[in-house]
């Protein structure tokens, strides 16, 4: 079933408002292609601009999704069923719709400026606040909870801890995820590569020097 134009829109109207364009493009372009392009373009999910609040998604078939949906996402290797709306971002789904909630992925700016919500989608770093949850069906999502546990830290997490790459700790999961994605691709990454990999992440306590040391130690130790 395809979506009809809004009541009141004349069929011959070619004047496309910005909102209508986004609505039409919403699920496919803005929510999918752009975001994929964004995460695919570099190791770093660069700070980017979110436009209007996400509109209902239209998957490949052109079907319109509305209201509360039940979807299944693959998160940290587990199939998780959850209810959400077409507009629900992956960040909101993780934090507010998963049961139990996955709150390690932090909400700081909710518009792609800070890197605190960095997750991996099919192995690439992505900003969960710029993705729609419904678009992630069939993809492998890894959150900070999927890397290691307090009892069994990953090598990078262990290094963050021993180098004191965290103070208040609020930005830390995002930094770990950004840099982990870099190290997955470049196990012997240089300082410059490490800096670039997390260039979209912000830390206000100013832990950058220790974060770089932590990452370099892993890169030099070959994991």
């Amino acid at each position, binding site marked *: 079933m395809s979506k009809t134009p809004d009541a009141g829109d004349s069929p011959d109207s070619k004047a496309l408002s910005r909102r209508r364009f986004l609505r039409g493009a919403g699920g496919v372009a803005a929510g999918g292609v752009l975001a994929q392009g964004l995460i695919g373009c570099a190791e770093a999910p660069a700070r980017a601009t979110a436009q209007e609040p996400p509109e209902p998604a239209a998957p490949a078939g052109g079907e319109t999704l509305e209201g509360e949906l039940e979807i299944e996402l693959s998160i940290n290797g587990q199939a998780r069923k959850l209810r959400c709306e077409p507009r629900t971002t992956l960040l909101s789904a993780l934090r507010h719709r998963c049961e139990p909630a996955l709150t390690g992925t932090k909400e700081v700016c909710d518009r792609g400026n800070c890197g605190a919500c960095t997750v991996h989608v099919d192995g690439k770093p992505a900003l969960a606040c710029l993705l729609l949850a419904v678009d992630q069906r069939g993809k492998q999502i890894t959150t900070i909870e999927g890397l290691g*546990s307090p009892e069994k*830290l990953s090598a990078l997490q262990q290094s963050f801890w021993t180098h004191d790459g965290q103070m*208040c700790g609020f930005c830390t999961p995002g930094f770990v995820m950004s840099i982990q994605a870099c190290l997955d691709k470049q196990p012997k990454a240089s300082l410059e590569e490490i800096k670039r990999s997390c260039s979209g992440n912000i830390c206000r306590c100013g832990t950058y020097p220790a974060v770089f040391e932590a990452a370099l130690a892993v890169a030099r130790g070959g994991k």
Partner: protein
Amino acid sequence: MANLQQPGKKKIKVTKNVDGHPVEEEIEVDDTGGPSWGPRAAHTLLNTELPRVDGPVKVTGRAVYSQDVRLPGMLYARVLVSPFPVATVELDLDAARKSPGVGAVIDLEVKGVKWLGQPVAAVAADTPERADDALRALAPKWKPGKWAVTREQALAANAPQVGRKGNLGKESSKGERAETEAAMQGAAAVVEAVYSVPVQHHVCLETHGVTVDFSGGDSAKVYASTQATFSIPGDAARELGLKASAVEGIVQYMGGGFGSKFGLGFEGQLACQLSKQAGKPVHLLLTRPVEFTSGGNRSGVHVSMKGAIRADGTLVALVSEAERFGGIGEAARHPQPYIYEFEKSFASSVSVLTHTDSSRAMRAPGHPQASFAMESLIDELCAKAGLDPLEVRKKNLKHEAYQRQLTRVAQEIGWNAHPNKTAPGKPEGRWCTGIGFGVSVWGGGGHPECEVEVRIERDGSVSSAVGSQDLGTGVRTYVASIVAEELGLPLGGVEARIGSSRLGQANGSGGSTTTGSLAPAVKSAAWNARTKFAEHLAQALGSDPAQIRFAAGSVEDQKSGRKLSFAQACAMLPQEGLTAKGEWVAELAGNGIQGAQAAKVRVDPLTGKVEVLKLVCVQNCGLPINRLTLRSQIAGGMVQALSYGLLEERVIDPDLGLALNANLEDYKVAGPLEIGEIVALIDDEDTREQAIGVAEATVIPGHSAIANAVFNACGARVRDMPLTPDKVLAALGRV
């Protein structure tokens, strides 16, 4: 005059923190023996590098912040704030109430908005998205009025009135102006200049907010992102209609405060009111744009300085007139002459009020602004008189710590081999390198407010508990490490329990007073626990308490030579184990720290771009409680100063009244690519066996050193922070 002191008492000066602002007062304390920190070489855990005990939960995303609390039936709240500095508003409350999933709507019944970002209503719904819908359903009809949001607007002849008595606060001044001006006669150089620092933001990554666990009934828990656990229960109880004793304030993890998070705040009050109305738990963390307009700011300053220097480098006289910008409230004070000693000085200061949110304490309130003006002026005087800015600093700083600290940072930054000592470099080629300096000071100190409880159980487990909060400074770690060292245990042998108003009381974390107040109380509790334990064991073993030694996980009775494991010793305790309490001990806290910083930058005279190549800090602090977290805190102050110096400024359109950069896209803070080499050094020549906090001092001089380095590189004197490329080019006369 008769000595009015009681025997065994003495009077000492302490620093009390009032919402992040230090207030000095004199108190009477017992003059007795008791625990001491030293000697420094004997420490097994303190003064070493200890990874923080909450590191594993932080790096794995398992630490639960107020933002992460999830409760059955919980509603998510949003606050509607005014986009205009002055306005009236009409709201469609019915539409909001009928919006899907809404559980509560509050109209603050604001008759007239008086500041940009002032809250006017709040809603709570079952999902964050539906709360956004409800906020939109309010469909506010704003009628903008007339406002003053800039200095020029506030000081204009027919300016809209901000405060009840006009647009100026109470003016203060010290010194004789005419006498000071006269003293400038015959000086080698006189410089007159205006320096300004804009209003900037704290940018805590976790926004202000709380999650209220209340569903009716007679008790509540309030999870708050706050710097003061004990500021929560009383205020929350008032909103909820409960007794303060029925409300627990919980601050297990919090995502940054920097001075902006004291008390329940409007966000906490609204969350409680929404929760009470809905009969459900409410989660209210401000959205980022609201955090910018309504969650606090660091006050700005516009200061006219006139200073004079003799040919021998003596600072002769200073006239300083400051206007401070703290929104509708009084801005942080502007202390001049800042740190350096002038023979004569006159300093006046007044707040200029605007229709924006009141400034809040921000790490060393007022000091970074004063540092920028003073350190810049000194380098301008040096350049005009042809003097070496490092030597002039040493000459006019009396405290011995600065002498060694400046020598060390100069060495670390490469000043000795640097060519531009008495005159700046020329703006030629692509990258010009320059070096600049700055110094800092802070009181810190402690206050008798904390009560710590140490428990030793029969099974050998030990806990150290106090209600204090950890802002990321490492409090939780030293609450454990101080006790562990006293009992001869590894760090993991003691569990730290903090962040609850159900535990022993503690002061709010502001003005670098946490460590000075809390660490002595922890030490005292640990000492009391060890003493009690030793007494018990001596009795059981037929020994003398003074012969019982705790070291390396063992307990030794030196009288008999008998050695027990710590667990074996604990098994000798009665069933109820052992409890010991500790309060503040004056001798264990210190007051007064100094630091010096140096910056090396490179400036592109073609584009005006500034890159910080290296920042060095040498900071004293009495006893380094934990060298690892201490270095992090020093580096953190340096990084924040770099960010403030190069990037940060709140922008409000004066005509439209709109906040133009209330988001992290347009309000830029330093990220990984802006960070050069950061060298944070602990000044170990300060051998005081005293605990002192370092949060404030480290953030004071970094941007000043950077501004001086930019000038030193190519002669671009930027007197208006931040040092953006356009200002560098303007200073070079190229735009």
